[in-house]
Every structure is written in structure tokens, then in C-alpha cells.
């Protein structure tokens, strides 16, 4: 086959809504874009454990502690599914860690915000996992097979994350005045960064068209953001909390909520590394990796020793 016919074959698989598998021919840009997208997503799952890990030992009840622990453990699993999917494209796990630790690779900016009260655990589950689900569900039908299969697993596990967060918010908002205020404050802190999770406005996302063509993105940033605002605003009413946006208003004609302007300067500033916790997050990650080196080496040495011992037992 000529390069031209390889490309034609690839295009026809994409058009048929069929899947590309690791050993199929694919354009270099498709491979590169996927490696970037999937590894970034994996890094986000791993770094995303840190803000919540902050509260595991201080959860208010044993039930909340068990739930939070299970959720954070899920996020580790999500990172692993995604790293494995990226590895099928020809990058090693260690290379990806390297890119994360050196700052070359990005992760979702939302995790560079601090978790200052217990209510943040509620707001994160409700809003951050909620936004993530909205982003991820369409990716269960993405064109790259290993990525799509990883996303199916992730999405199955994700729904309890949002529910447990909403339940925390509900309990607080029905509690004492102080508890309700805690919930509202957390809502105020996480609302705008959650809207930023969907990425820059469509007008400033030059790669959207190509990614949609490849089916590695299925809705635009603004479409998903609008859907999130519509759904979450209604959920806030159930909590009796106020969306921290004075411009938020139902638009009868559009059939959607209009909302205020997002502070994109803040967004880009956090992306560039100047958010409240960028350094802390990356340092925690690097320390864990470096301090864990002896464990990885010891496990490998033990495996070699056991292999040698087994080989000897067979000879004897």
C-alpha cells in the first residue's frame, strides 16, 4: 500500500465510526495528539488524588473516610488505565512520568487549587468530577480502541464520585448555618475553575476541528461548558445554594442559561505554573517518585532472585 492508500484506509475507518487499534497504520499527528491527550488525562487523574488525599485522615466520620479513600483509589486506577492506553502508542510509562515531573506535560489546572475545608470534598466531587464526567462520557466512543475501552471503565467508576460529593454538599447545606456557609463558600471557590476545566473558548481552540474529525473529541469546549452550566444550576437549587455568578440568567430563546465572563487571565496564569498550588503538587509527585525508587528496585531485585531460585530448583 502507498502512504496515500494507508491514509484512505484510516479515513474510512474513522468515517465508519469503527476503531483504530494499536497495530493499525495511523497518521503521525494522530498518534502524537493522542499521546499528548491521553497522558495529560492520566497525569490529571494522578495529580487529582493530592487535593483530596489532603482530607482522608480528617474526614468527619468513618463512612466519609471509607468513601473518600475508595474514590481516591479509583483515581489511581483511572491514571493506570490511561497510562496503559498511551503506552500502546509507543511511549513508555517512565517517559510519561518524566514529562510530568519535568513540567513538560500538563495536567488539568483545577488540581492546582487548595482544599481548605471539608466542604471542598463535596464541591470537588459534585463539580470537578461532574465536569470530568461530562467531558469523558463522549470519549467512550472515541476512535482509538484502547482509549475508548479505558474511558468505559473510567466512566463506570466515576458516577459514584459525583454522587458522594453531592451528598456531602446536601448534608452540609441542610445542617447548621455555619455548615451551610461552608458549603456555599466551597461552591464559590470551585465554580469558576470548574467552568475553566472545559478549556479555552471555541474561538481560541484551533485544534478542535481536527480533533473532532478524528473523533478524539466529540463536542466543543463551549458546548460542554454550556451543558454543565445548565445541569449544575438546577442541581444547585436542590441544595439551596446560590451559583456565584450575578449574570447567570435563563435565556428562554436559547433554551440555555446565559452566564458571566470567565476570567481567562486567571486560567492561563495557572496553566503557566502560577496557580496557588502548582509547585506543591509537582513536588509531592516528584518526592513520591524519588522516595519510592528503592521500593521499585527492591521488588525487581526480589523478582530476579526468585526467578533464579526457581530455575535452580528445576535443575536439582
Amino acid at each position, binding site marked *: 500500500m502507498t502512504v496515500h492508500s494507508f491514509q484512505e484506509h484510516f479515513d474510512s475507518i474513522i468515517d465508519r465510526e469503527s476503531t483504530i487499534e494499536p497495530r493499525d497504520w495511523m497518521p503521525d499527528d494522530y498518534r502524537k495528539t493522542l499521546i499528548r491527550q491521553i497522558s495529560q488525562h492520566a497525569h490529571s487523574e494522578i495529580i487529582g488524588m493530592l487535593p483530596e488525599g489532603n482530607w482522608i485522615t480528617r474526614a468527619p466520620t468513618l463512612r466519609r473516610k471509607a468513601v473518600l479513600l475508595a474514590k481516591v483509589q479509583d483515581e489511581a486506577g483511572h491514571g493506570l488505565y490511561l497510562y*496503559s492506553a498511551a503506552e500502546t502508542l509507543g511511549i513508555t510509562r517512565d517517559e510519561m512520568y518524566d514529562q510530568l515531573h519535568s513540567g513538560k506535560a500538563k495536567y488539568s489546572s483545577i488540581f492546582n487549587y487548595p482544599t481548605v475545608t471539608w466542604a471542598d470534598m463535596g464541591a470537588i466531587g459534585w463539580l470537578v468530577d461532574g465536569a470530568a464526567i461530562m467531558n469523558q462520557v463522549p470519549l467512550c466512543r472515541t476512535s482509538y480502541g484502547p482509549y475508548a475501552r479505558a474511558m468505559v471503565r473510567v466512566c463506570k467508576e466515576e458516577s459514584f464520585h459525583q454522587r458522594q460529593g453531592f451528598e456531602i454538599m446536601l448534608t452540609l447545606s441542610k445542617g447548621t448555618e455555619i455548615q451551610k456557609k461552608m458549603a456555599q463558600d466551597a461552591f464559590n471557590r470551585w465554580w469558576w475553575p470548574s467552568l475553566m476545566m472545559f478549556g479555552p473558548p471555541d474561538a481560541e481552540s484551533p485544534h478542535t476541528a481536527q480533533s473532532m474529525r478524528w473523533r478524539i473529541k466529540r463536542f466543543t469546549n463551549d458546548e460542554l461548558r454550556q451543558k454543565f452550566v445548565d445541569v449544575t444550576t438546577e442541581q444547585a437549587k436542590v441544595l439551596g445554594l446560590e451559583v456565584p455568578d450575578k449574570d447567570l440568567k435563563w435565556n428562554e430563546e436559547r433554551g440555555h442559561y446565559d452566564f458571566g465572563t470567565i476570567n481567562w487571565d486567571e486560567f492561563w496564569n495557572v496553566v503557566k505554573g502560577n496557580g496557588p498550588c502548582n509547585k506543591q503538587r509537582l513536588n509531592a509527585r516528584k518526592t513520591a517518585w524519588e522516595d519510592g525508587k528503592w521500593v521499585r528496585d527492591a521488588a525487581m531485585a526480589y523478582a530476579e532472585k526468585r526467578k533464579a531460585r526457581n530455575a535452580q530448583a528445576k535443575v536439582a
Partner: protein
Amino acid sequence: MTNDKLNKSEWPLWEVFIRSKAGLDHKHAGSLHAADAQMAIENARDVYTRRMEGVSIWVVESKHIQASDPDESGSMYDPANDKIYRHPTFYDLPDEVKYM
């Protein structure tokens, strides 16, 4: 699945197969890194069966998997297409014949 950029210190990659309940086949679930088979099974339990998704786990080092070539799938599977007589629906039997 092999890679020359593979870091020397990186644990090998394993493919994980899980039997979801008694009586069913093992099915590919995903992959993970582990120092040896024992650790691969333990990690697979932690990662892939936290919600009772399995009753039995197989692991095999990824480098031992041999896969068919996708570019040859045309010639590989095509010959089966014209052998429809391998399917029961190919045979026309009178309606009076029961239990067949």
C-alpha cells in the same frame, strides 16, 4: 508491544485476563506493570476487581503475546466468506422436520 526506549529500571508490562464469573471465559481487561507474575496478579486484583468484577485472573507478560498482522486481515479472514455451507441456515429442510 516491545519498545527500544524501554527504561531498564521499569517493571515489565503484563496483560491481564479476567473471568467475571464461574463458567465464563477469561477476557482481556487491560495491562499493568509489575516486577513478576505474583505481583502482577496482586496488582490486577487491586486495579481490575475492586467491585467484584472477577473470580479468576490470568496474567501474561505482554512481550509473549503474538498478534496477527492487521494489514493481512483481508487475506487472512477472507476465505471464510464463500463457505456459507458451514452455517446451518444454508440447508433447506421441509417444515415437517422437527427438532433439527
